[in-house]
């Protein structure tokens, strides 16, 4: 077991190292930050000064070396655009992102779990189709569109919710729903398939044979067991939500890390992009690692994979 964990840990570190190399060189291929920090008519001298200030005039491998050296000391550098410490910037945005993701996840499960269960046990054909289509609809609509339509309806037309920004609990509702809806279909599908798996299992059959009412079988025996893989996926998706919320964050002017990253790319703010992607990568890799290890503990066959 310990060997397995160590091996997975090694893999995770390799991925992160590859990620750091990839992101470092990728971001530098995208272009020159100096042209974005000046008006188009700015002079060559002004541009050179900016490049020099950021050390962009040095050879790439020197830049990478110093990046790694700083990284190992936990220093992600200074943002080109903001001119402040990148880690601080990231951490100041993270709470908003986590809040958004958590509420979005709640929405997603509220939609995904019941529809998934209904799809599996097929209580009623009509309800099943309606639920399925509602969950799939979230997957079918670009979230910026959902967001704009919601702003138009709930904010402008009905006037119930603030249109954008953050601060009060009401602010989080619309962006979270727009984000959560997109993930609902995935949770529905997994709920459905793991419900089916459990419903086909011996002990549910046994419960049925014992003559327990079907509703109780589903609610108590099947659902509880089917929930495990769904919650696992939810954990992975929670981390993903933090990292893919860029579109929703833009529409609702939500101050999360997604927008930080997107603007980092748009401004060619290399340190911000590197830090956001790497820290996001660490989150994703860690969650995957934990999930894999937990599964390996439950199901020893996996270790020999």
């Amino acid at each position: 077991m310990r060997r397995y964990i160590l091996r997975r840990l090694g893999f995770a570190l390799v991925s992160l190292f590859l990620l750091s190399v990839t992101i470092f060189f990728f971001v530098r291929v995208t272009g020159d930050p100096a042209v974005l920090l000046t008006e188009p008519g700015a002079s060559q001298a002004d541009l050179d000064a900016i490049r020099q200030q950021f050390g962009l005039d040095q050879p790439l491998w020197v830049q990478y070396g110093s990046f790694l050296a700083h990284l190992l000391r936990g220093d992600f550098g200074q943002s080109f655009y903001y001119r402040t410490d990148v880690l601080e910037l990231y951490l100041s945005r993270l709470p908003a992102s986590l809040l958004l993701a958590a509420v979005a996840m709640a929405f997603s499960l509220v939609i995904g779990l019941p529809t998934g269960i209904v799809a599996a046990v097929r209580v009623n054909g009509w309800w099943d189709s309606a639920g399925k289509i509602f969950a799939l609809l979230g997957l079918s609509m670009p979230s910026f569109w959902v967001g704009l339509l919601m702003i138009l309806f709930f904010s402008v037309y009905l006037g119930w919710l603030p249109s954008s920004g953050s601060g009060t609990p009401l602010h989080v509702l619309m962006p979270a729903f727009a984000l959560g809806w997109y993930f609902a279909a995935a949770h529905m599908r997994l709920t459905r398939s793991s419900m089916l798996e459990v419903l086909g299992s011996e002990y549910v059959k046994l419960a049925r044979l014992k003559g327990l009412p079907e509703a109780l079988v589903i609610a108590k025996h099947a659902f509880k067991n089917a929930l495990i893989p769904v919650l696992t996926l939810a954990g992975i998706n929670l981390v993903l939500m933090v990292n893919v919320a860029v579109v929703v964050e833009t529409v609702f002017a939500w101050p999360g890390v997604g927008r930080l990253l997107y603007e980092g790319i748009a401004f060619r703010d290399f340190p911000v992009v590197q830090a956001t992607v790497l820290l996001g990568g660490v989150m994703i890799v860690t969650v995957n690692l934990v999930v894999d290890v937990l599964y390996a503990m439950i199901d020893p066959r996996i270790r020999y994979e």
Partner: protein
Amino acid sequence: MSRSTMPGLGALSLIINDAYSALRRSRWIGVLLLWGGLECLAPHPADAAPEGTMTWGLHVTLASRWLDPAETEALITPFMVLYAIHDAVAKPMPAGPITPSLAESWSVSKDGLTYEFVLRKTARFHNGDPVTADDVKFSFDRYKGAAAKLLKDKVREVQIVDAGRVRFHLKEPWPDFMTFYGTSASGAAWIVPRKYIEKVGDDGFKKAPVGAGPYKVVSFTPGVELVMEAFDGYWRKTPNVKRLVFRSMPEEATRATALKKGEVDIVYLLSGPIAEDTRRTPNLKLVPSKPPGVFWLEFPDQWDPKSPWHDRRVRLAASLAIDREAVNQAETLGFSRPTGSIIPRIFEYALPFDPPPYDPKRARELLAEAGHPNGFDAGDFYPFPPYTSMGEALAGYLQAVGIRTRIQTMERATFLTAWREKKLKGLVVGITGAAGNAATRLEAYVTRGGIYSYGVIPEVEDLFQRQAREPDRARREALLHQIQKILHERVLHAPIYELAFLWGVGPRVEESGADLIRSHAYSAPYEDLRLKKP
């Protein structure tokens, strides 16, 4: 120089100038400006305590570097924040493009080598420290933003005469010194408190900036929100509005909705249908500000003798094919100003030309004369990001007379880099809002040293070199006008319009500060803004 841009006021300044200079040592003669002083004489509106909150929905992402004048890049955006928190020795104000602010006056020595600034005794930083000559020198030395190298190459020494006076010694006469020092071409004249910065360091300063401007920073969340409060010790006047809040709202529809709902009072950068909706909404106002930005069509292939664009008739045809007013209506609801020059009208030394008429028939004739009766394939067309729909409209007009193009949209950074590296062929839509004068604009686009010049007309280059050495203002202007005439006659570009930057203004605002300072794109001066009395 400043005198001439303010005709009518010039004479007045001379009279005061004479009276004032008599008080000064005879060595210091020359131009002296007293606008700041004059404003002090003007009756103040009853100084009530500041009240209320004004909130902005910004199109840009608030950067920490804008809190520190030393980091001012060649970009107008930082001045949005600088005008609130900081103050400059001289800066563009409603009174004129180079208005004494922290300095109450300055004078130039006869040989043009020394500028002496007399600082205002009433000027204070937010922490109560007076603004001294020492701070001016410190701020200049510390400055590393736009034109920093240029300024530091030209300035030999900054000398502290006494606490209230500071002298800039130049290496050689430089008529554009104040154009760079006293306008938004650089941030070198914006003064930061030396003692405070030495205590807290550069990073500490960005976290808790202290300036000499009308507003103090209350809180700042980078990229999200900046909250400021009126500084009652501001020398010019106590601001009317108690609190200013800047919020970043990158999505245009979101900004407009927030305005409609009354969540913000002013939003920047509206266009097309959203601007139209704002204009139609009762209570909301659509206000244009006029930064020095001009759109034009650039013909990078014209220097290649084999290209159809080499023929002046073809370029003229392209220019005549465009209905500038229709594009203006569609994009900026008619608030922009069609033009025939790539130099903004309000720039010093600018020679304005009327926009070419919309004449597709003549355009087709010209194309036929040039040997393209059925039009021709002009290759790629690069709209300036993010003004894609405007580019699409232009390409549509060209298509209508037979100039067929393929639109290539690029991301802003990629586009700008490719343009600078002269990799863009076909047609390019250009725009710039860089501060400066006609000479600085021309330099970038039509001279040998110009970073965006694809080719150079020798005559233009010669004239440009001559004007750069010309100390006499009138003769310099004549030379620069001659360049602009040549550009116009040869149709080097097809200018489109001077861009109007549209704001939406909500019902609570009485004075939004739009266009109080000529060619400044944002609300300013903040101390003059007013909310309606409830």
